[in-house]
């Protein structure tokens, strides 16, 4: 599960190195062909391959500080200040980076009990999170408690299957959001777990729950056909998998959807050795990922785009 840190540091160097070699090859070819015109060919060649990096966390549960070095389960792991360094460093390597969270931002350390989530939202804003979905514990100070923290978030809270129309959150939570990154359109939608039986009714009040499978299928259609997205990401707080098939979960969601490329999950605090590849409703391989809990890991998914003539006949290759 835990990769040696030195390996993370080497990886981008290798990637950059490879890109540069390809770039040099293209430059020399174009120079030979058209002389001065080579300059424009160069920029064209550079644009041939694009990379969108998606970073993600889930179930951080107010773990703002790193675990102590003598912690039995997560010695020295986690911490917002370290996550910030890693995110900064990845953004320097690839400016075309998005950062998401799959919910349960709140509850788990005295930071939440003392400040009600203010610090969590302020720090996520400092890390330039782009969006997060809502977990069951994000209702722990009531729907009013969540509403009160919204001014501290510069990122978007997204959920498509909660009906907030009879609550204070009405109009504040978007079903999805799109981002234009290096001319690649990324669409992100959110789905949340059934609150009844999990959260006291007095906390979530009149929040309605709609079937996440049906809503996901509707929302991904909108993102594909109306919004014309190139990548579709689902932020899910449903949970990775359950034995009880009546409880919706991520693996099943992946097999039912047709346009969703990546499900970033949460709730079950699932540590995966590698992201799971699932055949979706259109028999295409898609990814389901979750990175445990408490901010001890950061998930990273790189999407590469190429000119169609360079594409392999076998379709999209997924390396996990």
């Amino acid at each position, binding site marked *: 599960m835990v990769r040696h840190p030195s390996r993370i540091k080497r990886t981008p160097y290798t990637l950059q190195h490879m890109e540069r070699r390809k770039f040099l090859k293209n430059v020399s070819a174009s120079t030979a062909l058209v002389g*001065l015109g080579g300059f424009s060919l160069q920029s064209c060649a550079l644009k041939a391959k694009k990379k969108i990096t998606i970073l993600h966390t889930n179930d951080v549960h107010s773990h703002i500080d790193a675990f102590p070095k003598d912690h039995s389960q997560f010695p020295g792991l986690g911490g917002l200040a370290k996550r910030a360094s890693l995110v900064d460093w990845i953004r320097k390597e690839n400016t075309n980076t998005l950062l998401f969270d799959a919910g349960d931002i709140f509850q788990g350390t005295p930071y939440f009990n003392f400040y009600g989530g203010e610090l969590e939202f302020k*720090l996520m804003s400092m890390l330039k999170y782009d969006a997060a979905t809502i977990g069951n514990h994000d209702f722990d100070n009531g729907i009013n408690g969540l509403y009160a923290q919204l001014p501290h978030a510069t990122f978007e809270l997204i959920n498509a299957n909660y009906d907030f129309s009879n609550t204070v959150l009405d109009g504040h939570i978007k079903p999805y959001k799109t981002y234009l990154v290096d001319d690649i359109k990324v669409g992100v939608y959110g789905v949340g777990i059934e609150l009844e039986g999990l959260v006291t009714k007095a906390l979530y009040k009149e929040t309605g729950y709609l079937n996440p499978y049906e809503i996901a299928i509707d929302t991904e259609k909108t993102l594909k056909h109306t919004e014309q997205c190139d990548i579709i990401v689902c932020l899910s707080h449903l949970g990775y998998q359950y034995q009880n098939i009546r409880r919706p979960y991520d693996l099943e969601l992946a097999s039912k959807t047709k346009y969703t*490329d990546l499900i970033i999950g949460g709730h079950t605090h699932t540590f995966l050795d590698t992201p799971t590849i699932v055949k979706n409703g259109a028999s295409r391989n898609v990814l389901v990922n979750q*990175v445990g809990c408490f901010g001890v890991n950061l998930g990273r998914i790189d999407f590469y785009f*190429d000119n169609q003539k360079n594409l392999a006949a076998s379709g*999209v290759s*997924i390396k996990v």
Partner: protein
Amino acid sequence: MILKIKHFVAIITIEIFSACQNQPQSLSEIKAKQLPISDSISDNAAIEAFVRPYRKRIDAVLDSTLAFASKPISKEDGYYNSTAGNLMADIVLQQASPIFKQRTGKEIDFVLLNHGGIRSVISEGPVSARTAYEVMPFENSIAVVELSGQSILALIDYLIASKRAHPVSGIQVVLNKNDELHSLKIGGKAFDINQHYWVATSDYLTNGGDSMVFFKDALNITTVDYLIRNALIDYFKRVDTLAPIIDDRFYKIE
């Protein structure tokens, strides 16, 4: 001649540029990995500086000594009742009774919590608010449930069957050597099946937690809006020493 070359370059440039624009981009490859946030990564100084005053305030509040534990207090040190369970149930009874009485005019008859709800031992030495957070990290409030005499018997059956030292206070359960109920006293008086009783517990349990199904038959539930953790903290502030003992509130005649 010079002019012609310039034209040639311009045309080539435009053509190549437009060819470049027209080439549609498609997803070709996805690479995924997990990066551990390990302690070899340095702290972002701005984030660390931003968190520091919040952390300082929390530490100041949580780490000031409120009381002393004269010995380690654990939920594992007794079979039918434990020091930690007795302490917690007694605290809930003492702290919630005046509030409940003021609000409803009624008395709490006894307390039942769950063994699993005690999340940490209390070590010998200084006891702080942080101790209360460790013992009770959840945001569970005290709820007072009205139960019929019949439901009380279901509660006792649950206690006997669970074989765990669920915290109780204000009640005495004595089992015979066949693990059957020998005697039951509530508030020092013999149990009366025709009477209703007010049981203080956690709202987690009244909502179905730990399979305490007898709470489903509650005749009435009053939420006290008092976090169990805050009851612990208030009690720690009120007393100097914590010295709970294993006693005869729940035992078996051997």
